């Protein structure tokens, strides 16, 4: 068909839009894609200037093979979001090298729109949204530039300006429609959910804790969840966000490891689960938790599930029935001062919480610590006194808090307790539980987050990965499960102020996170800015990102006052979609599908044959010219070519009655096919 050339003036907008689309993605992708991107843009620009040629077939094949190879190598045989993104990015970048016609331009722009929406898979904050709006404007301008009249007398700068202006107007006009669709369009749950984060890239609490894991988290200022308390916000040292209970002890390579026990705990699902009555000391709060691709949710001590899809375990935790592939907002109620299992615990639970692994040699691991436990056991009469003695041991001995401790030797708890005496929460909680279990006192490591940053303006608390913490829970007869935090003995600031404030001066905090606003929080101006941005993002998450089916229903009910209207909206949308689908199918069905006559078929056989010799009939070429050309190319068949194409021409254009021709039609077509078979260029 007729193809318009790619307008030269459209290229500038196109390249700018490529850059806009590419930038947010680069943060998520391996560095070599930057190399691909820069070379493609440079190459395309040189092509625009006419200095470099279009890539030929060989180069194209080579580049594609290299690109696919690079994607495969960096994916390391695994299929995850990054590899898929880099694949589509490289593919669409290579398409840029091929832009010749207007249609190629469309393809690149539509791919860019797709790439832009891909970057939403990684981040959905308000800044990236505003940025995307800007990128959409640039993309629309590129689209307008693609349609600008190639023959108008406007100079290039004027055209560029016009394109930008036009697309801005288009965006402005579509803004109200966007808002209406956002509010009214039925919110459907995702058809499928995909684990977007590859496990290696995602930092977060894992179900297995070996010393060093939490220190790694302290390098990340990634958002974990936000909390808004209904009433007063408790003090920082009361905020122990429980996420996982690590009961199982293992020894790997001489290092102690604590993990979630494999047995599936009995879960009470809401609304069958226990709920405390609202009274003094009971806290109501809302949590917006970022995607973790795990089922665990966070809550303070004495937690209770408050909505459907959330259940409670017997270890005082709440869990979701689905993995959190998306951000989740949920209501929680906690009674931190309640007694848990005061009456006693099941013998199996007791067994689980006093279990200690033997060393691979079959002997008791960490003998020194075991000995310490024996001594402490003998010196005190009650379990409570023994626990307090362990706590006192941490405060009496010269322990210090550091995020970068030396690697522990074999029997790591011995090494930590008696030699190095420097570590962080994971070490303290691990060794304390070890000592307590050695005395036969049920104890467990609790992993979660501690504290968080209170935004005084909005009153919400932001908890980031560096707030990750581990502490200890001990079961004491007559008291129940009680929390102890050995880290608080060593570094009280860590608990009272939070990691950020207690370690701001230390180089080890956030040492790998590059430029981060959190790092700059010692400057008042930046801190103010950071807090305001955080508040804005909280508002954004609460109102826009969590605008789900339920909220939409509530809003519509509030506006329209009637449930019927909102349901009828759904019906209307469904009807619209159905009609649209049917119409599309109908139009596709109706597409002109002309039946070809034998002569046309024969002609296409000839055309195909000639295509091999680069002699194919041009779309704008008449049969007479075609015949002339073929006669020149195949002098030995000159007469038959002339005769047959003459007949063809008469078939199409002469006045003779169609009937007489129909008899000849099959004859001519057979002859043409025969001719097509005979024609051969001598030197090929």
């Amino acid at each position, binding site marked *: 068909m007729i193809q318009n050339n790619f307008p030269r003036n459209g290229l500038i907008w196109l390249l700018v839009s490529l850059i806009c689309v590419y930038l947010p993605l680069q943060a998520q992708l391996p560095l070599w894609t930057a190399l691909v991107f820069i070379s493609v843009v440079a190459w395309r620009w040189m092509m625009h200037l006419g200095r470099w040629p279009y890539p030929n077939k060989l180069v194209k094949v080579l580049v594609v093979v290299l690109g696919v190879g690079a994607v495969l190598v960096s994916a390391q045989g695994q299929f995850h979001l990054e590899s898929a993104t880099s694949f589509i990015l490289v593919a669409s970048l290579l398409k840029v090298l091929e832009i010749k016609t207007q249609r190629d331009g469309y393809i690149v722009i539509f791919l860019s729109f797709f790439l832009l929406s891909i970057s939403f898979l990684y981040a959905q904050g308000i800044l990236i949204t505003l940025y995307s709006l800007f990128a959409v404007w640039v993309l629309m301008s590129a689209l307008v530039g693609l349609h600008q009249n190639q023959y108008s007398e406007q100079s290039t700068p004027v055209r560029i300006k016009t394109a930008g202006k036009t697309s801005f107007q288009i965006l402005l006009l579509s803004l109200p429609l966007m808002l209406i669709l956002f509010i009214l369009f039925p919110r459907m749950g995702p058809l499928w959910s995909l684990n977007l984060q590859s496990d290696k890239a995602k930092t977060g609490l894992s179900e297995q804790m070996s010393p060093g894991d939490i220190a790694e988290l302290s390098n990340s200022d990634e958002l974990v969840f936000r909390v808004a308390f209904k009433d007063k916000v408790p003090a920082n040292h009361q905020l122990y966000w429980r996420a996982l209970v690590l009961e199982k002890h293992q020894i790997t390579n001489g290092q102690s490891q604590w993990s979630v026990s494999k047995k599936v705990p009995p879960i009470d699902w809401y609304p069958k689960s226990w709920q405390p009555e609202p009274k003094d000391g009971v806290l109501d709060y809302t949590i917006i938790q970022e995607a973790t691709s795990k089922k665990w949710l966070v809550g303070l001590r004495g937690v209770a599930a408050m909505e459907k899809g959330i259940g409670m375990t017997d270890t005082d935790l709440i869990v979701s029935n689905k993995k959190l592939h998306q951000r989740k907002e949920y209501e929680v109620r906690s009674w931190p001062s309640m007694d848990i299992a005061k009456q006693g615990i099941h013998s199996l639970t007791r067994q689980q919480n006093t279990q200690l692994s033997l060393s691979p040699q079959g002997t008791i691991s960490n003998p020194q610590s075991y000995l310490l436990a024996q001594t402490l056991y003998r010196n005190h009469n009650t379990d409570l006194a023994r626990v307090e003695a362990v706590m006192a041991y941490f405060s009496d001995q010269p322990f210090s808090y550091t995020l970068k401790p030396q690697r522990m030797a074999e029997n790591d708890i011995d090494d930590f307790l008696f030699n190095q005496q420097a570590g962080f929460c994971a070490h303290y909680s691990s060794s304390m539980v070890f000592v307590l279990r050695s005395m036969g006192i049920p104890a467990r490591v609790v992993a979660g987050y501690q504290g968080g940053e209170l935004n005084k303006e909005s009153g919400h608390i932001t908890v980031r990965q560096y707030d990750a913490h581990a502490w200890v829970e001990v079961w004491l007869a007559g008291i129940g499960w009680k929390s102890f935090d050995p880290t608080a003995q060593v570094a009280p600031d860590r608990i009272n102020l939070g990691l950020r404030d207690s370690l701001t001066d230390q180089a080890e905090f956030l040492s790998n996170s590059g430029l981060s606003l959190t790092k700059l929080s010692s400057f008042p101006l930046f801190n103010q800015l950071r807090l305001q941005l955080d508040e804005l993002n909280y508002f954004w998450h609460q109102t826009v990102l969590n605008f789900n089916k339920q909220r939409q229903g509530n809003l519509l009910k509030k506006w329209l006052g009637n449930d019927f209207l909102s349901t009828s909206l759904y019906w209307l949308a469904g009807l619209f979609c159905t009609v649209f689908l049917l119409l599309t199918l109908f139009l596709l069905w109706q597409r002109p599908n002309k039946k070809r006559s034998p002569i046309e078929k024969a002609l296409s056989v000839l055309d195909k044959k000639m295509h091999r010799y680069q002699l194919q009939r041009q779309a704008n070429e008449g049969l007479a010219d075609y015949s002339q050309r073929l006669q020149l190319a195949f002098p030995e068949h000159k007469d038959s070519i002339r005769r047959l194409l003459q007949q063809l021409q008469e078939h199409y254009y*002469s006045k003779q009655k169609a009937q007489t021709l129909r008899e000849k039609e099959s004859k001519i077509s057979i002859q043409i096919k025969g001719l097509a078979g005979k024609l051969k260029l001598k030197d090929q």
Partner: protein
Amino acid sequence: MSSLSSKSISKSLQSLLDTLNTVILGKETQIKLAVTCMLAKGHLLIEDLPGMGKTTLSHALARALGLSYNRIQFTSDILPADILGVSIFEKDSAIAGSNEQHGTFRFHPGPIFSQLVLADEINRATPKAQSALLEAMEEGQVTIEGETRSLPTPFFVIATQNPVSQSGTFPLPESQLDRFLMRISIGYPDAKSELELFNGVDRRAMANNLPKHIDINQLQALQEQVNQVHASQSVLEYMQRIIHFTRFEGGYSYGLSPRGGLGLLRAAKAWALIHDREHLIPEDIQAVLPSVLDHRLAEAAQQGKTNPSVYVLQRIPVFS
């Protein structure tokens, strides 16, 4: 009107073309286009530099077709009366039927009263004088002093203009360019033709002495024959696609008018007739399109696209 057999048509047309080719050397296509224009009953505009054989070509055409011939040299001070003619008071003349010598106004027909008029350097005249000629071209008659006088039939105008805009020229507006069915330019001869020209006799004299090949009756029969050329649906659709493209898709500020479209069809049919064919093929349209389309769209085309026909033909497929 004598009906001509197809054989005699081709024979007389071929000998006409051959003769013209001996006068203007190496310009077969241009001569064919000029004859096409005459067969399609259209007026011809020749745009070229001085001395390229414009006058010789028109003179030779007039002789070979047996038409009466007049040449009007347009200048900036030419008046409509110089073209159309004027009534002059003659003291000695008598009113018809009476013997008294009163003296009356008698109409002296201008040079336009001839079957083939060569309007030389038409863009040198003022718009007033130009329009006098162009009106005559359209109506086939002139009205002078309230009296309408028919022009002879057939009536052809061959106008010439210089492409280089020189001082003191009045370029023809689009509406008047539209009156010319075709515009051609002759161009320099190739080396062989030029050498032959140097060695040969004076071309102007040769044109003056050309024998008559076709008489007026035959010419009119040929013109009638043009209408008989068959145009199949397929080729008409091709032509319509071209016209549609000039109007809505090609990026021209205006496209080919219906009159232009009809002219294109007639010219293509005449071209088919010259090639001894009873039906129209796409190549006929492609052959005449540059001379029919380009001068009509010259103003509509933006800079860089002054050859609309080339642009259009590249883009329109022969088969939809």
